[in-house]
């Protein structure tokens, strides 16, 4: 398998060296994951593994019509069933308005939609929660659901974007319109002129298909209210323990210090578990009423039809190019489906609009973006929430190339931002690009795939054998590790025990990011200890406040805090060691937990265990006046976003008889700054790529015209398996970011780059027959339909 690795120059040469006084043994290495022994042997501990004495179980009654009025809701027959403890409807819930809205969204203007935790007098999508049964077992709870006497008079639902826009039928009667979150950056006369009078003006409309996060572990919660302490203990499958604590405290109107959130392993989330959803808020509210530990585990059907959906977007985009085929202006109209109850914000169209220029020197852009409510499952973040920008732009670049007759790689090369152009201010003046390498990743990808040779083979295979081979690229930049609000900060406590072992406490909610490994690498590096001597404790609200694991924040923000705390502890270690060794702290170094005077290999040494023993147990040996103990808490504040970038390229073949697409190769050339652990980077890239492939070729959440979901099991909602995905080849370019460590966030990138790359490759193959496609998905059915239009 091809591997390429190119270190780029550091734009900030005057920065301090990356590591001082330690041996640089772990950062940048393929350190094996600390999580793996338990996870790959099936011994992870998930929320459903939590069993508490006296625990009872909840199940939700969900709507099976997309829109309708509830004319009868009698729960008494369910309550009469043996083993049923209580049945609640909306009328039974007491909560202060606003308390279900994510803290971050409150700062951004509050809820996008009504805050009904359970249906009030109507239902608004198939899966909408109407009532909740609490029973001695989940079996009994589900038996009881069938006994609830419910009558819903169906009304005409709003199922798709087009219908929603007309406002003929309204999803949320309180709002009076289906249109929400409109942002309009109009074209100024200059852009208008370019978009009408340039040498080449091309317009196209692209649709993206509805996808859902599908974590391996569905959502789940165990809420246990201790009425004597007045405290709530929450075990939850989540990405963001501090936000969950805040929401639970607000919902129950108790102090945050009266809520403790803890989790062991979390089996994925991809954005689904960043904020507290309606069901979990209900469980939190009921926990105090029920008075016994209350468990709700979402089943797979619920997760598919009612957790959250994403990606159902449409855009009409226009690019103007001058006679040299330089893209001079762009305009896009973005329309997102928010479903009925979006959470964590209705959409991401504004970010998609602002990133229209991507890695190109496109100086003039404007956009309009709006979301619409529909009677479908609500939208929430899904790995790369605004990845539609790359779909719009990268599919458009290749569409334009076909229309004006230029090679798509050549078109990108004419327009891509070069190293010399940085820092580069985007057309809307809100973002400044720096420390990125789009031109270099493009070159690396082109070289790794052997572009010229592929084009020759494509031509030969088509002309001689009628085979449809295709190649697609996608080039994108990724603003990661946001510098706003709670997302700009993380904290870490580093603490050394009396035996010289290191405990690190972080506010993250790892759900597959290898945080226990990578953050241990950072701390081990800074402390000069072996990575096995560092234990990272996280996934718990009894940690320094953190903004949650999402938005590709960990590598630069969390590591910044861990690094700063470790440096403080190391300084104190050196002070104590200097005292014990009768040396100057500035002359010391530490390697593998042994502290010595630099340049004196045979000289006196002291171990970290001796130092920490002194700090905690033999405190008389400390320098006079020094505080005891070896621990520090530090915080990192992110001053600017980091800019990761990558180029994806893949080659495919279309089977003309079945419409199936098979991959020949898939290459990602990625620049995420310095890599903490290349194996973890490649794992993150690969996982994202698979989700991107899935979005174009396999996963497609469908509703019928009445708003009934058609793909509510894994038999119909198709996640690709190992058999369907290609081997992913990786190229690396390392341009350090201007953050401590030089890292950049990259957790979402694979899912951002892959969809247009896959689409472009299929489109390229179809173009051999003169056939054009514009919409995802491209399953065999769609491809056979497209092939049928060939002349």
């Amino acid at each position, binding site marked *: 398998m091809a591997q390429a690795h190119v270190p780029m120059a550091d734009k900030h040469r005057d920065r301090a060296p990356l590591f001082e006084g330690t041996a640089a043994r772990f950062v940048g290495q393929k350190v094996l994951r600390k999580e793996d022994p338990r996870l790959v042997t099936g011994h992870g501990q998930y929320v459903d593994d939590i069993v508490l004495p006296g625990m009872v179980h909840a199940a939700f009654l969900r709507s099976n019509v997309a829109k309708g009025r509830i004319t009868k809701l009698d729960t008494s027959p369910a309550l009469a069933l043996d083993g049923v403890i209580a049945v609640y409807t909306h009328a039974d819930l007491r909560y202060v308005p606003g308390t279900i809205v994510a803290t971050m969204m409150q700062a951004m203007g509050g809820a996008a939609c009504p805050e009904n935790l359970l249906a009030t007098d109507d239902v608004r999508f198939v899966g909408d929660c109407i009532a909740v049964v609490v029973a001695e077992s989940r079996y009994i709870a589900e038996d009881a659901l069938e006994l609830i006497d419910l009558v819903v008079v169906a009304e005409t639902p709003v199922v798709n974007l087009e219908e929603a826009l007309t406002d003929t039928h309204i999803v949320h009667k309180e709002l009076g319109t289906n249109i929400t979150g409109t942002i309009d950056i109009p074209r100024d006369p200059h852009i208008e002129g370019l978009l009408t009078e340039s040498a080449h003006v091309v317009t196209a409309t692209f649709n993206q298909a509805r996808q859902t996060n599908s974590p391996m572990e569905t959502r789940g919660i165990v809420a246990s209210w201790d009425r004597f302490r007045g405290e709530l203990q929450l075990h939850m499958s989540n990405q963001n323990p501090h936000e969950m604590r805040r929401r639970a405290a607000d919902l129950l109107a108790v102090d945050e210090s009266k809520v403790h959130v803890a989790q062991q392993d979390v089996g994925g989330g991809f954005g689904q578990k960043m904020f507290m959803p309606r069901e979990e808020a209900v469980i939190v509210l009921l926990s105090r009423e029920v008075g016994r530990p209350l468990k709700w585990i979402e089943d797979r059907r619920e997760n598919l039809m009612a957790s959250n959906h994403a990606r159902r977007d449409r855009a009409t985009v226009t690019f103007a190019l001058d006679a040299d085929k330089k893209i001079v202006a762009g305009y896009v109209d973005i329309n997102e489906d928010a479903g009925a109850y979006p959470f964590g914000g209705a959409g991401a169209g504004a970010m998609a609009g602002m990133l229209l220029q991507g890695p190109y020197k496109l100086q003039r852009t404007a956009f309009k973006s709006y979301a619409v409510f529909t009677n479908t499952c609500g939208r929430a973040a899904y790995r790369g929430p605004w990845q539609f920008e790359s779909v719009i732009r990268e599919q458009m670049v290749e569409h334009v190339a076909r229309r004006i007759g230029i090679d798509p790689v050549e078109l990108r090369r004419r327009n891509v931002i070069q190293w010399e152009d940085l820092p580069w201010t985007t057309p809307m003046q809100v973002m400044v690009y720096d420390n990125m390498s789009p031109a270099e990743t493009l070159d690396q990808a082109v070289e790794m795939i052997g572009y010229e040779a592929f084009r020759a083979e494509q031509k030969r295979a088509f002309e001689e054998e009628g085979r449809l081979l295709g190649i697609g690229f996608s080039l994108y930049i990724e603003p990661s590790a946001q510098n706003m609000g709670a997302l700009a900060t993380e904290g870490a406590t580093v603490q050394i025990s009396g035996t010289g072992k290191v405990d690190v406490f972080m506010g993250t909610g790892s759900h597959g990011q290898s945080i226990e490994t990578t953050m241990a690498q950072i701390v081990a590096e800074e402390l000069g200890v072996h990575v096995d001597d560092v234990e990272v404790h996280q996934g718990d609200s009894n940690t320094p406040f953190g903004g949650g694991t999402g938005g590709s924040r960990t590598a630069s923000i969390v590591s910044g805090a861990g690094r700063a705390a470790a440096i403080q502890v190391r300084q104190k270690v050196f002070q104590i060691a200097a005292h014990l060794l009768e040396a100057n702290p500035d002359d010391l170094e530490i390697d593998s937990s042994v502290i010595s005077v630099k340049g004196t290999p045979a000289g006196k040494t002291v171990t970290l265990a001796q130092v920490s023993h002194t700090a905690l147990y033999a405190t008389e040996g400390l320098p006079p006046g020094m505080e005891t103990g070896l621990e520090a808490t530090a915080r990192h504040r992110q001053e600017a976003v980091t800019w990761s970038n990558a180029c994806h390229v893949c080659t495919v073949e279309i089977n003309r008889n*079945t419409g199936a697409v098979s991959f020949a190769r898939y290459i990602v050339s990625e620049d995420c700054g310095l890599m903490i652990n290349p194996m973890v980077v490649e794992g993150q890239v690969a996982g994202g790529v698979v989700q991107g492939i899935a979005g174009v070729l396999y996963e497609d959440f469908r509703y019928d015209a009445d708003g009934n979901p058609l793909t509510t099991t894994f038999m119909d909602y198709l996640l690709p398996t190992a058999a369907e995905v290609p081997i992913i080849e990786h190229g690396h370019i390392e341009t350090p970011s201007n953050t401590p460590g030089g890292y950049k966030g990259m957790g979402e990138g694979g899912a951002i780059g892959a969809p247009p790359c896959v689409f472009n490759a299929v489109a390229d193959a179809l173009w051999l027959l003169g056939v054009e496609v514009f919409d995802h998905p491209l399953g*065999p059915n769609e491809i*056979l*339909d497209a092939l049928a239009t060939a002349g």
Partner: protein
Amino acid sequence: MKPAPFEYHAPETIADAVGLLAQHGDDAKPLAGGQSLVPLLSLRLTRFDHLVDLNKIGALSGISRDNGHVVIGAMTRHRAVELDPSIATSVPMLAAAMPWIGHFQIRNRGTIGGSIAHADPAAELPAVAAALDAELEITSKSGVRRVAAADFFQGTFMTAIDTGELLTAARFPVWGKGSGFAFTEFARRSGDFAIAGVGVGLEATGGKITRAAIAFMGMGPVPVRATDAEKALLGVSIASLDAAAVARVAVGATDPTGDVHASAANRTKIATHLAEQALTRAASNAAANA
């Protein structure tokens, strides 16, 4: 996703099993490998007050030969048939079809009887049974009867098995010298139920086709035999078979419906292609076996 309450029975003999089925009538259902029944129960798409678990009945498992037939006990696991070397030579179409059923984990549990009794229109084994004119052995308190595959599959998930009856074995005829088989299908992912599939058997003597069987799956509520195409093949030279033309005729016997994965028209396209492939492969296998 928890099943409605049921009473669980685990008889150890066929007699006890059919006794329980007779006693509880339509309220009872046999439980074989559970790979189809358990998800349906969990989704509450179906429910029975009594489940009669067949897993303890040793007499229901095994592969034997009887009078020109290979007889496979209903509780024989898919995987056992797949890995049995004698099946590859005696009923090659069956051997070719087995690996297409789900994933190996499913084949470790799923049973021949379960697949046939379940009668999923997109399942492999009903199509193979139909193509080969297998006989299905059905047992009840009043005795054993045999039903031809053509009469057994009556509709989507509907068979000739009556209340109180148990499918106890499937009998697959062994074809003679000069025969060749092929089975192929197209699914969106490896292990999925197919969008369409086809099994073909050809037998030739002196270079001329003397016996032909073509059955499609996923192309109608039950497996579809392409009888017109089969008839047209008789007497044709196996070496100069026009597979594409025969495939077009064969697919004319089907009447597929569309679903989220493929429209009826695209199913037909795919099935035509599969039939052409299978006919070509069966012909060359037959020639090699001459």
